[in-house]
C-alpha cells in the first residue's frame, strides 16, 4: 500500500510545489507592474 502512495505523492509534491512557486512569482510580479502612485503637483 505504501509504495503506490509514495509514487502518488512523488507526483503530487512537484505539482503543489510548482503551484506555490507560481503563486509567489505572480505575487511579486503584480507588485512590480503597478508602481506606487505618484502625486501630481
Amino acid at each position, binding site marked *: 500500500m505504501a509504495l503506490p502512495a509514495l509514487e502518488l505523492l512523488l507526483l503530487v*509534491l512537484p505539482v503543489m510545489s510548482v503551484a*506555490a512557486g507560481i503563486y509567489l512569482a505572480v505575487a*511579486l510580479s503584480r507588485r512590480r507592474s503597478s508602481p506606487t502612485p*505618484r502625486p501630481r*503637483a
Partner: protein
Amino acid sequence: MSDERTGDQAVATYLSQLERAGAGLPPDRRFELVQQIREHLEAVSSAPGATEAGVLTAIDRLGDPTDIVAAEEHAASAGTTEPPATPGAWGPLEVVAVALLTVGSFLLPVVGPTAGLVCAWFSRRWTQGEKTVATVLVAPTFLLFGLVLAWPFLRL
C-alpha cells in the same frame, strides 16, 4: 517607426530628468525609483497597440520629475516608504526560491521544494501571508510523504 522613436526619446528624456531631480536621494533609492518608473513606461510603450500619444499621456500622468522626487523625499522623511516586506522587485533570493519550487521540485524532489520554501521565508520581498500560502500549498504533501514513509514502521 518615427512614433516609436519619438516615444522612446520622450521616455529617455523623462528618465534623465528624473535622475537629475533625484540627485539628492540616496543612490540606491534613486536607482530603485528610476527603475520603477522605467519599467512602468516600458510596459506602456511595449503594450500591444501602444502609440506615441499613449506614452506621452503616461509620462504626463506621472507628473513632473521634481514632484516625484519631492513626494519620495516627503515619504522618506515621514517614514512612510514602502515596508521592507514589499519592495516589489526580484532579487537573487527570490529567483532561487521560485526556481527551487518549480524546476527544483523535479530535479531535486523533496529537497528542492524544502530549500525553496526556506529561501522564500528568508526573503523580505514577500509578505508573511504570501509565504504562509506557499507553505500551506506544499506542507500537507510533506506531511503525507512522511506518513507514507513511516507507514511500514507504524504497522509493526
